């Protein structure tokens, strides 16, 4: 795919922000909220530049091979928004676990943290594959 011109927009700053992809299970909340917040900023910019072929928004791309570029951005929005949905669900469940924490017995605390930890690392593995496919392609 000839999408070399995407590079200047999807710059290396994202690499640093997403370095939190392998977060330890202890500091989930702040980092994941930051990641979702960052993704929202990124979406807003792409909508503003006409690079979001979703929800009926116009797709304007003046670089070479606009058909493939539109295909890439369609996939990009589908994959990252599904991933964001997973993240938001995880944050909600973690919030619920924290809210119920004082009223939870020791054994249940262990079980819940174990379960949400497994879910969180599943989401993590998804991002491990999405990151090179979406951000490092044709650099």
């Amino acid at each position, binding site marked *: 795919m000839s999408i070399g011109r995407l590079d200047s927009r999807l710059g*290396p700053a994202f*690499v640093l922000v997403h*370095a939190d*992809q*392998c977060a*330890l*299970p202890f500091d989930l909340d702040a980092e994941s909220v930051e990641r979702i917040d960052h993704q929202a900023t990124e979406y807003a910019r792409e909508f503003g530049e006409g690079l979001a072929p979703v929800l009926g928004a116009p797709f304007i791309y003046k670089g070479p091979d606009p058909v493939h570029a539109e295909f890439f951005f369609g996939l990009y929005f589908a994959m990252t928004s599904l991933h964001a949905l997973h993240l938001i669900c995880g944050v909600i469940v973690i919030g619920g676990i924290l809210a119920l924490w004082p009223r939870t017995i020791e054994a249940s605390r262990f079980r819940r943290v174990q379960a949400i*930890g*497994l879910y969180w*690392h599943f989401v*993590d*593995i998804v991002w*491990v*594959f999405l*990151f*090179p*496919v979406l951000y*490092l*392609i044709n*650099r």
Partner: protein
Amino acid sequence: MSEFRKPTLAYVGLLALLALTVGSSFLALGTFNSALNLTIAAAKAAVIAILFMHLASAGVLPRLAVAAAGLWLMILFGLTLIGQ
């Protein structure tokens, strides 16, 4: 302190693999770039599954279940991408 040792080592290892994959994307290797990126991603997934998801200390059954699921995922993704 020893309970933090393994996750910390895994974390540092994942950051090193991240640096490797980002670094390799600056080299012009053609289609080999994608292959390298996916190989490194598979290595990162293995680190996460074995250390963070406790597969190292799990019994035979969970490992078998993960191996079967991984095999199915590879078949499904492989068949999807085969027409490219």
